[in-house]
């Protein structure tokens, strides 16, 4: 199946593992959680925090079991720790 590049913007503690951004290749029709699985494969040390991350597109959180739409950029949101 065709794969396409998805750019992922990283914040806070995630940058230690992936830098400010990283691009992964995912199959057309894959879910958002597939992107997280790809990142776990790239850096298994990040697996714990990745399991708590959410994905945002256009400033909205996406449901991880939904298929990717046409977006090329995802924002990977680690657990909030403000306040």
């Amino acid at each position: 199946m065709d794969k396409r590049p998805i750019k992922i913007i990283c914040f806070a503690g995630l940058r230690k593992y992936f830098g400010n951004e990283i691009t992964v290749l995912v199959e057309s029709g894959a879910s958002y959680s597939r992107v997280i699985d790809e990142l776990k494969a790239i850096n298994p040390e990040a697996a714990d925090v990745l399991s708590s991350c959410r994905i945002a597109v256009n400033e909205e959180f996406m449901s991880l079991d939904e298929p990717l739409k046409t977006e090329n950029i995802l924002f990977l949101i680690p657990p909030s720790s403000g306040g």
Partner: protein
Amino acid sequence: MLFSGEVRDNNKGREVTHLEYEAYEPMANKMITEIVDEAISRFKLNQAVCVHRLGQVDISGCAVVVITGAGHRKEAYDANSYIIDRVKNVVPIWKHEFFADGTSEWGQNCDCVTHKDEHEPDHHHEKAE
């Protein structure tokens, strides 16, 4: 009612020198506005404001302010607590703690999740715990 969240000089027994906050700003601003608007309607407030600092905040410095105004104090206090809990739980803001021994750590899940059931389910934190 004004709540000022101020930086403590220790966390879990470790001496803290200062904090640095980072946010995904456009989304954080949008979500804080939504949370405040929801609280105004839900608690029938006359006014509400929440502002969170970014960048370095020193010990005793104010990191976040929540102001709620209502005709009765119960609504103001309840709404204030609701707003700060929601902001800490769901808004993409992150705390980087710097310790006296020269090390630093990104904050883990916020410590206010035990109150989440009073409000609405937060699946993210239920999973994270």
